[in-house]
């Protein structure tokens, strides 16, 4: 190698490998927002942690997140993968269908399993949840937002084979919903299928969600369910085409955009204001909208709670908010699973559940929306239903039991009468409430445990009494809290 060439290569190597570090030391950083997440915090560098590999992992994460030009490298590599090779740089999270349509593989891999619950069970659980809300005196709407692959299978292309198994479960679920619709059911699924069959595009190409046309069509059906006659096509505004980056394109590291047509509702004399509470500040997954009404203008809804996921994000402000004086949209992820409250970034939001219950207490309308692939998990658990049941028990037909003690006898006629009976126990004690359902053939006989309560929260327990024997005696045994700390023992009928 000639000396000048050798010198040139040495300089190139120094620039390539030392350059980013020098830029880092000079204060330059990779775009902190390009991954839409919090950057790794500064490492806790201490002499006492010199042998702790965690310290080095922290330092690595801190540096990697900030190293200059990393965002550029990711973007160029993604561009080459997608535009030159026709590949997805991120096959786990994004799959490429026909004509550049992007799909989220989890929407078909997650439901391609034999472990899914029966569709009929999901429908029954949805009905119970919505019945609790409806029988407490609220107007309700329940809808399942279908997957992009369900509505636009024509763009799956080579992904059709992988999605086929999930498609069977989708069809079975939709059939079950139509066969025995849950209380307040709004069939946006069918509406979007119909639109697609007529050649309309109701989902984004680069995003996993419905587009504004699909969102507007769904919203129209929800509004009709809650406030019949309120929706008017004259209020629907179609904006000028604009460019938008879809979540799946961003997920691949691309900066590309797709042309979209914004569609929103403008009602005369009605202005939608987005406001935030303390909880909303802490989490982007709770959003609150209020109306500013000009003189003479009215809204059919007063106070509406929407429990929905990211699909709600395309319709809450644009289409639903103009119809209700107040709309609080709480993301399913915010209320968490198994009692763990967190926002989508994983940070805990302890106020979110309280916000949900407080908003519900003052709401006259409730919308429950969930995306198709997550409904299997969300509605196979009774946690949310029991939480709402306990919270709304005052508004539902109920009967309080005055007796207190470790073992409390239940009335003999519990299983009689109309409505499905549940027992709600609430405590102001510290321990996690534990309630067992007991039965015996008659006085003097041994108690046998025949069921257990579920605890949606440590201070609550709910027991389903539907299958309580009609003969003999029944009782509950309360554990972990002192009988003096029991606030309520109540039988509620739904």
């Amino acid at each position, binding site marked *: 190698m000639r000396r000048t060439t050798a010198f040139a290569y040495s300089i190139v190597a120094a620039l390539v490998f030392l350059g980013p*570090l020098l830029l880092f030391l000079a204060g330059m950083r990779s775009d902190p927002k390009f991954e839409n997440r919090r950057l790794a915090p500064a490492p806790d560098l201490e002499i006492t942690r010199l042998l702790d590999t965690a310290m*080095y992992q922290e330092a690595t994460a801190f540096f990697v997140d900030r190293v200059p030009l990393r965002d550029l490298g990711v973007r160029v590599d993604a561009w080459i993968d997608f535009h030159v090779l026709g590949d997805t740089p991120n096959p786990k999270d994004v799959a490429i269908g026909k004509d550049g349509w992007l799909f989220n593989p989890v929407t078909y891999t997650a439901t391609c399993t034999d472990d899914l619950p029966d569709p009929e069970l999901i429908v029954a659980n949805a009905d119970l949840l919505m019945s609790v809300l409806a029988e407490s005196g609220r107007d309700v709407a329940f809808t399942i937002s279908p997957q992009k692959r369900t509505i636009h299978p024509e763009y799956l292309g080579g992904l059709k084979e992988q999605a086929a198994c999930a498609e069977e479960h989708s069809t079975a679920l939709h059939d079950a919903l139509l066969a025995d619709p849950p209380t307040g059911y709004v069939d946006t699924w069918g509406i979007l299928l119909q639109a697609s069959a007529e050649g309309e595009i109701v989902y984004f190409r680069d995003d996993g969600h419905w587009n504004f046309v699909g969102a507007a069509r769904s919203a129209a059906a929800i509004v009709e369910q809650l406030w019949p006659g309120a929706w008017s096509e004259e209020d629907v505004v179609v904006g000028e085409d604009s460019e938008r980056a879809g979540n799946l394109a961003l997920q691949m590291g691309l900066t590309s955009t797709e042309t979209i047509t914004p569609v929103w509702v403008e009602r005369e004399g009605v202005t939608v204001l987005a406001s935030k509470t303390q909880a909303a500040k802490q989490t982007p997954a709770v959003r609150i909208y209020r109306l500013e009404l000009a003189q003479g203008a009215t809204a059919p809804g007063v106070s509406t709670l929407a429990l929905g996921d990211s699909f709600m*994000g395309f319709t809450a402000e644009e289409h639903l908010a103009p119809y209700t004086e107040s709309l609080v949209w709480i993301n399913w992820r915010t209320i968490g699973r198994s009692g763990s409250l967190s926002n989508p970034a994983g940070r805990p939001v302890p106020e979110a559940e309280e916000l949900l219950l407080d908003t519900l207490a003052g709401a006259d309308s409730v919308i429950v929306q969930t995306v198709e692939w997550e409904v299997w998990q969300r509605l196979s658990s009774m946690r949310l239903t029991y939480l709402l049941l306990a919270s709304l028990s005052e508004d539902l037909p109920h009967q309080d039991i005055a007796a207190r003690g470790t073992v409390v006898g239940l009335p003999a006629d519990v299983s009689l009468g109309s409505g499905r009976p549940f027992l709600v126990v609430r405590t102001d004690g510290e321990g996690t409430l534990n309630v067992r359902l007991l039965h015996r053939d008659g006085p003097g006989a041994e108690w046998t445990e025949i069921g257990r309560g579920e605890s949606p929260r440590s201070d609550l327990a709910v027991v389903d009494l539907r299958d309580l024997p009609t003969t003999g005696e029944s009782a509950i045994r309360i554990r972990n809290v002192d009988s003096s700390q029991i606030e309520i023992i109540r039988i509620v009928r739904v």
Partner: protein
Amino acid sequence: MVFSSIEFLFLFMPVAIGAYFVVPRALKNHVLLAASLLFYTWGGGAFVFILAASIAVNYWAGGFAAAAREQGNDRRRAIGVAVGVAANVALLGYFKYANFFVDQLNSVGDALGIGTIAWTNIGLPIGISFFTFQSMSYTIDVAMGRAERLRNPFDFALFVSLFPQLIAGPIVRYHQIADQLRDRRTRIDDVAEGVVRFAHGLVKKVLIADSVAVIADAAFGSNPSDLTTGAAWLGVAAYTVQIYFDFSGYSDMAIGLGRVLGFHFPENFNRPYSALSITDFWRRWHITLSSFFRDYLYVPLGGSRGSTAATYRNLVVVFLLTGLWHGANWTFVAWGAYHGALLIIERVTGQRPTEGASLPWLRRGFVLLLVMIGWVLFRAESLPAAVEYLRAMFTFTGGVGAAVGDVITVKATIALAIGAASVLLPGRFVAGVELQQRVGAVPAVARAALMGLALPYTLMVVASGSFSPFLYFQF
């Protein structure tokens, strides 16, 4: 910390090498030693004490044996060697194999109903297979008079812990770099050649090995009953490319880094998939390991100097241990036994050419096929899984299957094609060496393409590997 990570490429390496060039010559080894110990601690934490203890024991054993040799005291020399070797074997045996052997004993005890040994699994210090072998080479080399012992313990510590080859080789024997440890100079040519060699290794590792790894992982991770014949062959072909480009790429990077720092490490690969026989394969694959076993085990056992039966026994012993060196699992033992058996068959039939044989392409193809079958044993999670995989390879079922089909991207296909095509190159053409050393217009253009195109693209792929966006954008 792997060489192909952002933290190594843009933080550790520039700081360590920068500091090395900035300090006066007298301090260069100290800087390198400090960097190497930091490199080890970064990934190994408190295991650095195991490394330090190994350094101390081996330094003493080598010094003791060397002093005995100088005094002509063979008995004391043998004691020094025995202590050094025993210490390394004990270290390796305890940390790498104790869990495995206790598992086997417990399986037997459980089956016979005689109880099991209560045992808490031991963590594995990274690079232990490499640093124990290097340490052993020091004791043996100074005891045999192949090189002078080191008087400075810091120089010895540097020899054992030198970060470019600490965790993945090549296994550098003491006599190969003894002089360089004491005195070396880095010229601009060394830096340039080292940089080119490092870049070549990085490109091999990131663009070829990592790209085809998804296919191999999908095939070997599949349920055996779902594995079609096509998927099984594709998987083993991908793994054949992956393991070579991964390991030789890492060796290229180590050799390149060493060169930048003024060291001349031995070559570790020489186009192994162009071998004309399994005997030839083992002269081309992981050369520093096979030559270590040859010189420090096979030859002392008697090599091929004794009876035919003794030669076969020696081969079996060497290859069982070679297999076991790669990991504490029966699959590695089986892989070693498989290669040992093939070598014996070649000796029996006299078919073990290393060059100039008739029908070279046919021989290369056949040897590659045998090697690929061996990789199934090497890669499978267990022996039953390997048997199932081999059954899928040789029982015809159509298609590729969804699990493997899903991961066959254009990038992976190109990488697999390039990797497979390397088999077609002339037998003595080793790209890394050619790029590093050869003079002429074609190598110059290739070097420019490597540094100007392939390296920047590779670094983008490295950056992409760290991309971790949050899915719920806007929500």
